[in-house]
């Protein structure tokens, strides 16, 4: 008769069989049996965070930079509710997380027991699926199913709620089931006909654009490789969403930069004027489309996505291909290669005029800004950071706000999985714990959180985690003493009524660094910015970099509210001679 294992032992057996190496967590009454078992499993390292939200974001950073699911372990009640923000964030940005939460013993469920909450009820709308395990015999099956749900199809978070008595109860362990029960949820069933139709559209297009998104990253490094081949084969221009950055090299000539609300002039105009739009693994988010009725009005639209519910959700498309980006693009590339002769000749000359037009748009240089010798411009700081780190394999996380957009605009990514940012939910406080998770997954790499001073204070406590595990993360704070994006909208949309957006009583970040036991660096003037950045890079340990920047800088270009792509507000250099600006101003 096989040995009987406790629920806690089964949890670890499953984690071992799923090849989990790190879990991010915080102990508490209802998970103590699992924590007690931790010592018997040396292959699994537990990272103790300082707040459960931090555990969730760290696991997200870990997952997004490594392609493996992130695992979170929290206690019942407040432990579970604290992780809800991170679960929602992961759900919006399709990050595979497996969250294990403790629960009060089964006989106390529903009695308002100490630290009891309806965890599965609370997390139902922010997970792909969740389970309350009330029978020890279900535990191993549920654990393995959880990993499968989190990592297959469009990835996302799942939660397993395990009452304390189940953690003590004993049963036989069941290995993961090899045979996959797909329940109609496999979505890689595209046909060669669809591919042929797409290739036909490609060869006819005169003004094509490729718009790629986070789905390319989620599909794995092979997808980025296939995408690069595809762009090379077709000679088409490509733009990317916030989440897709890095799938295609940011410094390549065919890359038009990010699109959307703070995207480049050329990318947004190309989206508006194109006759063929190929969406690869993106979801027509409202930050991308602007006004729906006037979104890319004259184009045939193709949408490649693994999630059938993304198709026609926002924008009606002419051709939908439901499938994994890697398999779809590889199939397209093969099909193109087969008919290469006729195609490559006709098509590249077809789109020469289009490229001329794009070059004209590029001349606007829409990411420009007025630099200064007196104060550090935030865009300049990001540019210098990029120049000084581009030769290393750098991983960048961000918080949410102006700094995030400047990072997206001015930091060029050349590889997938190097850029971790909260796009869908827009969670301030994401970047610091995410950097912790990234550094755990890549101990030898340079990991930088490009942060704002307001965001970073939301999860500052995780510096303690970084110091405890000697994680040399660099927190690069663009400190403008404002919730900058809030201030910018108040300036442009609310008659400069800066209601509650100024950060009074900011802490001294140098002293804060000292208090946490890490290094603090402060930069005030453009003259010594480079040296200070270099000092940060060279320091072997966690750093808080307090970069004082011009507090009045706004993030441009910008698509104002309810406007289509071709009506952007440009930066200060263009404002005098720019007709759109005058008209745009009145309409904002």
């Amino acid at each position: 008769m096989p040995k009987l294992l406790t629920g806690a032992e089964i949890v670890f057996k499953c984690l071992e069989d799923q090849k989990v190496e790190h879990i991010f967590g915080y102990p508490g009454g209802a998970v103590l049996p699992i924590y007690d078992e931790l010592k018997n499993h040396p292959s699994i390292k537990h990272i103790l965070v300082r707040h459960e939200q931090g555990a969730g974001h760290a696991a997200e950073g870990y997952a997004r930079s490594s392609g493996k699911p992130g695992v979170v372990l929290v206690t019942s009640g407040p432990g579970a509710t604290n992780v809800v923000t991170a679960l929602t964030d992961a759900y919006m940005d399709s990050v595979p997380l497996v969250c294990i939460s403790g629960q009060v013993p089964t006989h106390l469920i529903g009695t308002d027991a100490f630290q009891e909450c309806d965890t599965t009820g609370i997390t139902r709308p922010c997970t792909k699926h969740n389970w309350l395990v009330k029978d020890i015999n279900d535990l191993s099956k549920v654990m393995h199913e959880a990993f499968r749900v989190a990592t297959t199809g469009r990835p996302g978070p799942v939660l397993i709620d395990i009452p304390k008595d189940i953690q003590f109860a004993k049963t036989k362990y069941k290995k993961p089931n090899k045979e996959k029960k797909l329940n109609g949820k496999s979505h890689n069933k595209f046909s060669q006909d669809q591919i042929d139709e797409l290739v036909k559209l490609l060869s006819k297009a005169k003004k094509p654009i490729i718009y790629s998104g986070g789905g390319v990253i989620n599909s794995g490094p092979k997808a980025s490789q296939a995408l690069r081949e595809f762009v090379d084969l077709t000679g088409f221009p490509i733009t990317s969403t916030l989440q897709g950055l890095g799938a295609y090299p940011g410094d390549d000539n065919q890359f038009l930069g990010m699109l959307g609300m703070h995207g480049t002039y050329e990318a947004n105009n190309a989206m508006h004027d194109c006759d063929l739009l190929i969406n690869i693994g993106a979801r027509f988010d409202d930050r991308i489309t602007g006004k729906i009725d006037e979104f890319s009005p004259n184009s045939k639209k193709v949408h490649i996505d693994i999630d059938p519910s993304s198709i026609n959700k926002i924008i009606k498309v002419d051709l939908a291909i439901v499938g994994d980006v890697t398999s779809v693009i590889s199939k397209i590339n093969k099909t193109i290669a087969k008919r290469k002769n006729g195609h490559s000749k006709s098509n590249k000359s077809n789109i020469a005029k289009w490229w001329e037009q794009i070059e004209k748009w590029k001349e606007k240089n829409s990411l420009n800004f007025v630099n200064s010798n007196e104060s550090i411009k935030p865009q300049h700081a990001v540019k210098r950071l990029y120049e000084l780190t581009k030769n290393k394999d750098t991983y960048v996380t961000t918080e949410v706000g102006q700094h995030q957009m400047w990072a997206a605009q001015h930091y060029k990514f050349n590889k997938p999985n190097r850029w971790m940012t909260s796009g869908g939910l827009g969670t301030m406080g994401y970047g610091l714990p995410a950097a912790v998770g990234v550094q755990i997954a890549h101990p030898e790499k340079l990991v930088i959180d490009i942060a704002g001073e307001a965001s970073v204070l939301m999860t500052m406590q995780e510096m303690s985690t970084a110091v405890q595990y000697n994680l040399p993360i660099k927190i690069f704070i663009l400190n403008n003493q404002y919730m900058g994006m809030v201030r910018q909208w108040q300036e442009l949309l609310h008659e400069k009524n800066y209601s509650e957006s100024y950060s009074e009583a900011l802490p001294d970040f140098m002293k804060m660094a000292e208090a946490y036991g890490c290094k603090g660096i402060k930069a005030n003037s453009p003259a010594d910015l480079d040296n200070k950045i270099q000092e940060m890079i060279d320091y072997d340990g966690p750093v808080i970099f307090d970069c004082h920047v011009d507090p009045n800088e706004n993030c441009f270009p910008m698509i104002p509210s309810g406007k289509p792509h071709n009506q952007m507000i440009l930066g200060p250099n263009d404002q005098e001679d720019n007709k759109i600006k005058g008209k745009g101003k009145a309409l904002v």
Partner: protein
Amino acid sequence: MPKSKSAYSIPTKKQKPDTYIFVVWVDNEAGVLARVVGLFSGRGYNIESLAVAEVDAVKNISRITIVTTGTPQVIDQIRLQLTKLVPVHKVAEFKREDKGVIFKEMALFKVVGKRNKIEKCLNACKKFNPVILDETKTSAVIQITALRREIDKMNKKLKPLGLISTSRTGAVAMTRGAKIFN
């Protein structure tokens, strides 16, 4: 166009919504109804009626029938979002006008009054297979099966005849002929 202070886009085109009936086969497990209903409320879809019960005790399958309204785009989304739920096996949807499908609701009417009024009630219900489930000298419980709007109509019609309480189920659906939902 009104001046907007929002960074979100302004709603524009409004299509006409239609009534559809969704039939959803799910694993009969704890929380499954909450998942389905939560999807509707969370995404702002409408539920006009809901009927759910286990239909296969061996395979542990329940069948949920939901009447909803929405534009074709919203109906598409409802189907695709439902299909994504882990315990959902399959989803079928029909327009209310679909001639190939039978829709039925059941209602119980409690009528209090003299014999002749109760007789009148029964008479009025004649078209909808009335069954008397309980009878006293002064009251009766009448069961009918009919379409939603027919029950609405009867509800109104029986009020003056002594109807004091109505209880009704949500609609259930089944295709006509030998074929079943794929």
